[in-house]
Each structure stands twice: as C-alpha cells, then as structure tokens.
C-alpha cells in the first residue's frame, strides 16, 4: 500500500489523497497512486484551469469537434475539414532543448493523425531570453534544430510561427508547436474505447523507462535540481513516427477501427483512461503483453512510461490480425494488450495478477477542481508613463534601423530556413509574410495559418493582451486573403496557486473569449502550460493564439510585399496616439511599460471585412497588418519584401514618433493600382472604415514626411539596401557570433 507521504512525493495533496481513498474505498497501492499522480497533475487534469476554460466560445456553424478530443475540427466545405491543435513542450525544452523540442513536435503530430487526418503543416511559437546570453543561444539553437529535424523528417512543412525575445523568458523558454491536418468528414476517427469485448492494441515503438513522470514534471516550477530530473527527457525518433503515421492513415480506412489515441503525457495510463472515459467503458490490460525496450520493468513503469511514437488502437474483436498486417507492412509491431470492458474500471494485470484497479472516470475526469482566486497585481496600476518627458529622438532614421534590427522585428529567416517549408508542394505563401497560405490539391481552396501573441501586452494588461492576440491573428489571416475560421490556443503562464498569476490567466482568457466571439472564431482546441516560473519570476503571461482561415479561391491570396512601382499605398483604419508597450519604447528608452494598444473589436471587424473584400475583389496588390514597430516598420517590411521603396506624407495631430512607431491596432496598409483606388474608397465608406492615402510605391528608398498642421514634425529617409541589410541578418549575427 502507498500512503500520504508517497502521495506527496507524486505531487498529490492530502485532500487529493483522501479523495482517492474515498473513491477506491481503500488505500491505493503504489501503481494506482502513481497513476493518480500523473492523471491528477495539472498537465493532464487541468484542475486549475478547467472552470475558466469554460468561458471560451467553442461552438459555431463550422465546428465539427470542439475541445475534449485529441484535436479540434472545423469544416471547410467540399466534405473537407481542418484538424488542428497546439501544444507546449516548455519544461522539457528548458532542460534539454533539442530533445524537448523534437518530442514536442512528435506529440502534436500524433494528436492530429490520431483523429485520422493527414498532417499538412506545422507552426512553432517560441519565446526566449535576450539573444546575447550564451545560455539563450544554446537553447535557441537546440530548439530550432530539434523542431527542424523532426518536422523535416516527417515531411510536414513548418510554414509559420513566431520568435520573441525578452528577459522574462530567460530561464523559462516557451516552445509551442501547432499541427494542422486535412481530413474528409467520413474519415474522422475519435479517441474512444467503445464496444465491450473489443480489442485494445498498442502499436509503434517499444516501451522503455523514458519520461516516467514527465507530466508531473511539467506541472512544477523549474528549480536548480530540474537537471537531476533528467531521466524525464525522452528521445524522439521521427523515422518511427513517419512509419506510424502512414500505418495509422491506412488503418483509418477500415470500418472496424473503433478508436485511435496517441500516447503522450502519462503514457498508457492516460490513453486507456481517456479513451474509456469518453466511451463510458472500462479497459482491462496486461502489462506483460506490452513490448519492452528494457528488461525488468515494473507495472508501475510500464503504465507511466512516456516512450514516444506509440499509439493505442481500439478495434472490433476479430480484426486484430488485420491491424497487424497493416503494421507489418511498415515494419512496426501491433500487439493486443487488453480488452474493452463494461465495468468502468481500468484494470491493470501483470501476467494475469491484478496490479491496479481504478475507476476510469475518477482517473480521467475526477481530479478535484481547484477554485482559484485571482488578485489584480499591483504593478498593473503602476505602468503609466509621462510621455512628455520622453525626448523625441533627433534622428528618426537611426530609430527605424534600430527597430528593424531588433530581434523581435528582424527577419526570422535564420529560424525558418532550417525548416522544410516547401515539402508537399502546397505552400503558396512561405514563412516571412503575415500568414502562411497552403493550397488544397483537388480543390480551388486554400487555408491560411498563423500564431500570434505579444507577451508584454498581456503582462501590462492581460485582458487587452488576450483580445489583441486574437485580433492580430485574425488580421494576419485577412491580409493574406483568408476568412478566419477557428482558434487553437496555448496558454503559457506562471504558477496558478499565486493569485496574481491566476488573475493574469483569467483576464487573458476573458480577452480571448470576447475577441473570439466578436470575430466569429470559436476555440476548438488548446493546451495549458502553468508553472513557467523560476526563482520567483514568472514568464510574461503568454496565451498563444493559433488560427486557421479559409480562402475559397487560393489564387486570390495576398502577401505583404509591394509589387509595383507607382501603386498607391493606403492605410485602412485609424492612426492612434498609443506608444505604450511598444518595441520603440523598449529599444530606444529601455522602457517596458505604458498601456498596451487597445483593440476596439467593432472597428477591428470592419477593417478586416473591408480588407478581405478588397482582396477577394482583386483590388489590392499587397496587404500587411501593422504590429510591432508600428506604421514605419510595417511600411519598411512591405518595401523589403517587395524589393521596392515608398514615398509619402502623413498628417497627424500627435507626436511624430507615436505616429511612426506606436503600435495602435486595427490598421492595415495596402498597395493597389491607382485605377482601383476609387472602388476601394467606396468599399471602405460603405463599411464605415477610415481610409487614408499615405503615398506611393517608389524604387530604392523609403521617404516619409510627417506633418502637423502644415509644418514638418518628422522625417524618415532610408535606402532600401540599408533597411534590408540590418533587418535580414540581425538574428543570425546575434546567434552565431
């Protein structure tokens, strides 16, 4: 038997231990307690977050599968659907960046093909400390090559993502990976162990001792001795996963397949209890039947192992050999390890002797929910800045170049060129524009994909930050020509037991929810990662929003690159006097403060509608949303991407630096042939969207004059070559020197 002290070592509280005893009507044994330990960890049970997650809008006309399965599914017409999910692998990556990242990618891919979908794209959302720190360089290089090696080998293009650098992530890098699949409606498979008497089979890799307690590890703060937790680190084998993928996709075509579930955190324990819980059944399995990589493994170890590249397959009785035949073709083994039962128990045998016997419901859904209270942190009310005391820089050209070389704005090519983003020959818009666009062969359709979140905004105002993440993601899709459809989210926060952290968490979720409702993009899947905290310091609240959008006609996509000299450049939306939380304040004045820019959802929606309509009508040559670095940086990015320049004059009532570098939301810059201008203006007026002509596409230089009431208040004049040069190599220089 195992007692209270053992429970504590597994991260279970006294109260939770009592609950277990009550449920079982006896004291748990060591195996059972271990199973509870992982299943009731925050990572698996969402015990701290579940009540808050209920606030998300999760339904809408297009949703075929909301949260609760391995991944969410949204309909895109033509009997096709998109399957998507994002997941964190922060803790393992902090300890071993390469393997941490590979296994993170491996895990999210399995979630997608467990649903029966062929994965067609990966995205990665990354946060690190400042890149001049040697440890940060080590983490960044390891993480990027880990993602590359796994995704590239799988033949799934990594088409987008983000990289942000901030001191706040120094000890706790964030590594979030998103995978997207395409499926025909009738091919959808769910993770259910239905049908008493059906067979439970384990397929893929043999089971070893790796990663035991990985889930509990992900539910703790990192500490000095996290490095001694090293056995929790698993090694990924993308080759094995590629075979597993192909075999599972062959498998799904058969009617006798009842359910497929990947083995991730908490391994067999989680896969068995979740599939049985979803179907309202039980499972009896014998660990002696589980193929091992190591000798002498105990039932405890087999049930908790997090060995990668394994799946659980539930098939109708009598079809076990059919499964084996398919897996043999790919040189994989498929072994029947148990049976679906009707008694609602997860019964673990070892060569016939009962080693554990626990109700699946209590394992999968029974973790006592923690009602946490949030408390507004004091710092939030102390972020105001007296802008009048900030002196206007005398040389705005230098400011612009400084911003373009800031690692948060500079080209991320050093990262995404290590990822194969063209395999599968569907990538219509590669990384480097606002969103990636993929075609869907055999149709006229395309999908657009992006991930977004500004952690500093969320830190300074969690509600606005949450809203902004959704608004920006949607805007990135819209400027690419896609109608936003649905959200998957990865909520990265500190320790939820701290009321200030919990406040951030709740407010971010409220912000995401409100924006998702307003923009009509329900949340269909997601992941929570707490305890991103070290030595009393938490990461910025970072609720990463992954979003998918649909293009009915993929030929009508758009990119941010200026296309043609002489095109008119316009602004859709309103310039605002908002310098707070900007990259400008950080880079030039060393200030991370102020109020982050506010999103007015109604305006956001109108601006997006207008832009999307204009692209669909074929009016625009380019479109680009304004984000970090503001208007000037957005214009520079369109110049650099197109190898062209810009010349224009902008009138404003406020400071030139706020106009040029403020990060006011709901703004898009577009270029278009002169002849389309009047149509665009009519469209904008019809939709109630402000439109301003900024200037024209020119060769070779960017010249911007800012005027207030006729007098010049600011001037920018930089050559394309200079801008391109500082922007292009900045990250490479910082990381490789």
């Amino acid at each position, binding site marked *: 038997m195992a007692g209270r002290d053992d429970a504590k070592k597994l991260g279970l509280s006294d109260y939770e231990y009592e609950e277990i005893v009550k449920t079982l009507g006896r004291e748990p044994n060591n195996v059972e307690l271990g199973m509870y330990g992982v299943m009731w960890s925050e990572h698996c049970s969402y015990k701290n977050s579940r009540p808050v997650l209920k606030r998300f809008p999760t339904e809408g006309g297009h949703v075929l599968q909301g949260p609760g399965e391995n991944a969410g599914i949204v309909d895109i017409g033509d009997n096709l659907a998109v399957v998507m999910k994002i997941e964190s692998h922060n803790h393992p990556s902090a300890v071993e960046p390469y393997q941490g990242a590979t296994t993170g990618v491996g895990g999210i891919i399995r979630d997608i093909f467990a649903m029966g979908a062929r994965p067609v794209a990966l995205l990665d959302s990354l946060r690190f400390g400042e890149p001049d720190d040697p440890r940060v360089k080590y983490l960044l290089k390891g993480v990027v090559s880990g993602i590359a090696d796994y995704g590239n080998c799988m033949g799934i293009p990594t088409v987008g993502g983000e990289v942000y650098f901030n001191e706040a992530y120094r000890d706790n890098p964030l590594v979030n990976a998103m995978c997207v699949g395409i499926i025909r409606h009738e091919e959808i498979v769910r993770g259910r162990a239905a049908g008493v008497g059906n067979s439970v089979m384990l397929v893929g890799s043999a089971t070893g001792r790796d990663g035991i307690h990985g889930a509990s590890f992900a539910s703790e703060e990192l500490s000095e001795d996290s490095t001694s937790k090293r056995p929790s680190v698993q090694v990924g084998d*993308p*080759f094995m996963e590629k075979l597993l993928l192909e075999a599972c996709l062959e498998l799904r075509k058969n009617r006798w397949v009842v359910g497929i579930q990947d083995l991730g955190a908490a391994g067999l324990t989680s896969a068995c209890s979740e599939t049985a819980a979803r179907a309202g059944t039980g499972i009896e399995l014998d660990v002696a039947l589980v193929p091992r990589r190591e000798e002498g493994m105990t039932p405890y170890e087999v049930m908790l192992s997090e060995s990668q590249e394994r799946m659980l397959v539930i098939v109708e009785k009598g079809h076990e050999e059919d499964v084996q035949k398919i897996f043999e073709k790919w040189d994989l083994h498929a072994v029947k390890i148990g049976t679906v039962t009707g008694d609602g128990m997860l019964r673990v045998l070892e060569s016939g002797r009962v080693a554990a016997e626990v109700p699946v419901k209590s394992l999968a859904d029974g973790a006592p929910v923690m009602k946490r209270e949030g408390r507004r942190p004091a710092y939030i009310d102390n972020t105001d800045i007296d802008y009048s005391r900030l002196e206007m820089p005398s040389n705005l050209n230098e400011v612009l170049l400084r911003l373009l070389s800031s690692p948060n704005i500079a080209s991320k090519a050093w990262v995404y*060129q290590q990822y194969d983003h063209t395999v599968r020959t569907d990538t219509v818009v590669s990384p480097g524009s606002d969103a990636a666009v993929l075609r869907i062969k055999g149709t006229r359709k395309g999908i657009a994909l992006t991930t977004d979140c500004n952690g500093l905004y969320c830190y300074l105002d969690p509600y606005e930050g949450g809203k902004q993440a959704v608004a920006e993601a949607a805007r990135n899709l819209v400027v690419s020509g896609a109608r936003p459809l649905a959200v998957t989210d990865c909520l990265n926060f500190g320790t939820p037991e701290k009321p200030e952290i919990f406040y951030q968490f709740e407010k971010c979720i409220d912000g995401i929810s409100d924006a998702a409702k307003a923009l009509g993009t329900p949340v269909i899947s997601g992941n929570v990662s707490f305890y991103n905290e070290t030595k009393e310091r938490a990461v910025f609240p970072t609720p990463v929003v992954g979003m998918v959008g649909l293009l009915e006609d993929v030929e009508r996509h758009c990119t941010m690159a200026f296309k043609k000299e002489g095109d008119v450049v316009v602004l859709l939306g309103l310039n605002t006097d908002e310098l707070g939380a900007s990259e400008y304040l950080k880079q030039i004045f060393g200030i991370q403060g102020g109020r982050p820019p506010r999103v007015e959802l109604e305006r956001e929606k109108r601006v997006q509608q207008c832009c999307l309509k204009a692209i669909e009508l074929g009016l625009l040559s380019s479109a680009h949303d304004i984000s970090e670095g503001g208007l000037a940086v957005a214009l520079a990015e369109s110049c650099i991407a197109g190898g062209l320049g810009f010349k224009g004059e902008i009138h404003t009532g406020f400071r030139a630096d706020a106009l040029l570098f403020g990060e006011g939301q709901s703004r898009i810059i577009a270029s278009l042939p002169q002849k389309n201008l009047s149509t665009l203006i009519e469209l904008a007026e019809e939709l109630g969207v402000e439109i301003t002509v900024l200037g024209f596409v020119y060769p070779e230089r960017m010249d911007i004059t800012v005027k207030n009431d006729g007098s010049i208040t600011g001037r920018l004049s930089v050559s394309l070559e200079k801008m391109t040069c500082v922007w292009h190599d900045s990250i490479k220089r910082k990381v490789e020197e």
Partner: protein
Amino acid sequence: MKCAVIVFPGSNCDIDCYHVWRNVLGQPAEYVFHKDRFSPDDFDLIILPGGFSYGDYLRVGAIARFSPAMASVYRAAEKGKLILGICNGFQILLESGLLPGAMMRNEDLKFHCHDVYLKVGTVDTPFTNLYRRGEVVRMPIAHGEGNYYAGRETIERLKAEGRIAFYYCDRNGMVTGDANPNGSLENIAGILNEGKNILGMMPHPERCAEEILGNTGGRKLFESILDYFEGRVKSGRQG
C-alpha cells in the same frame, strides 16, 4: 510515358513527384513499395524521391540501397531506363554506386530550405534538353546533407564528359562561393552517369512546376524527359 515513384520507408517527397508526373504532366505514374520488385520494362522513368529513407540514420541513403526495389532499379539502369534521383534520391544513387562521389553534411551543419539559382551545365541530356545551355533557373532546396564530394579525378571526368547537370550560381549565373549553399565541390548541384540516363540532383524540381507555387522553373525538367521519350518513340528508337 510510365513513371515509377519508389517509396522507401521515410520517403516524403513521393507524393509530390507522383503528383507532378500524374497531374501536371498528365502521364501515368505508379508507386512502387521498397519491398517489391519490378521488371525493367514496366516503366520508362523511375523517380527516387526525396525524404529521409530509413530516417537517414548511419548515412543518408545508405540503408535504402539494399531494398528489393533497388535491385530492380539497378537492372533498369543497365537497360538504359531513365532514372531521376531528387535530394534523398540523389543520395541513394551515390550510396548505391549508380553515380560517383558521396554526400556530406552541409558545411554550416544546418538544414537549408530556400530558393537557389542553378546554372544548367549541359543540355545534351534526356533531363535538360529543353533548357538553354547556361540558362539560370530558380529552384528550392531543402536538405541538411547536400555537400557533394568526390575525388579530384572523378570531378575532372565529370567535367570533361559534360556530366555536371547543374551548378549553384547567383541570379546572374555566376558560379561563386557565396552562391554555394552547402559547400558542395565546384558548386555541384546535380550530376549524370556516363550513359546520361541517370540524373541525381539536390534541388527539387517537383516543388516548382506549377504557377500557384510561384515558380515553374522545374517544370521544364519533367517536360524535357517527356519530350526526349516521345522523340524516341517517334523515331522508333524506344527500348
């Protein structure tokens, strides 16, 4: 013109090659699983696609060459059938000895995925006959090990016999060190066997054969193959 795309465990450009031949060129194509054999007369073109056969463990392409399907490829090669190895397929051709030399890790040890410019080294082949000599073509690369190596003698022979199909170059066609993405000797991006019926190349022509992908630089390669074949059929020289 019937094409076989060989599927090794870990191949991942198999569907892309199949797609181009079948849907873009409109010609018959079939997958051949690595465990299967075929007769040299079954196909007119054999594509060894890119990917990570056997996980690229040990050495890229090293394990794939022992598969049963490769035994059939050797026989087809002897009979003069056209064989095209792209990326991992090129690496397999080197390991199997159908082409000379070896592939090493990229000089900077990083995977490279981006467009490169290629200078067409010879147009006197079934694979390049529609290009102009010296023509500059843009194509994507995506590899971690494309650093071609061979002994001096081999290189000299390749040059003398016009067997270097593509060189990495800059946008103006200059074959420079800066234009070399991986450290490949002499900027070599693709080579032919003596009979010029086998081409191995690192860049991916199948990824740039359609308008919607923003680049059709690779399409001519497939059209050259078809053109060559149809010319031979017409003149009755087939087989």
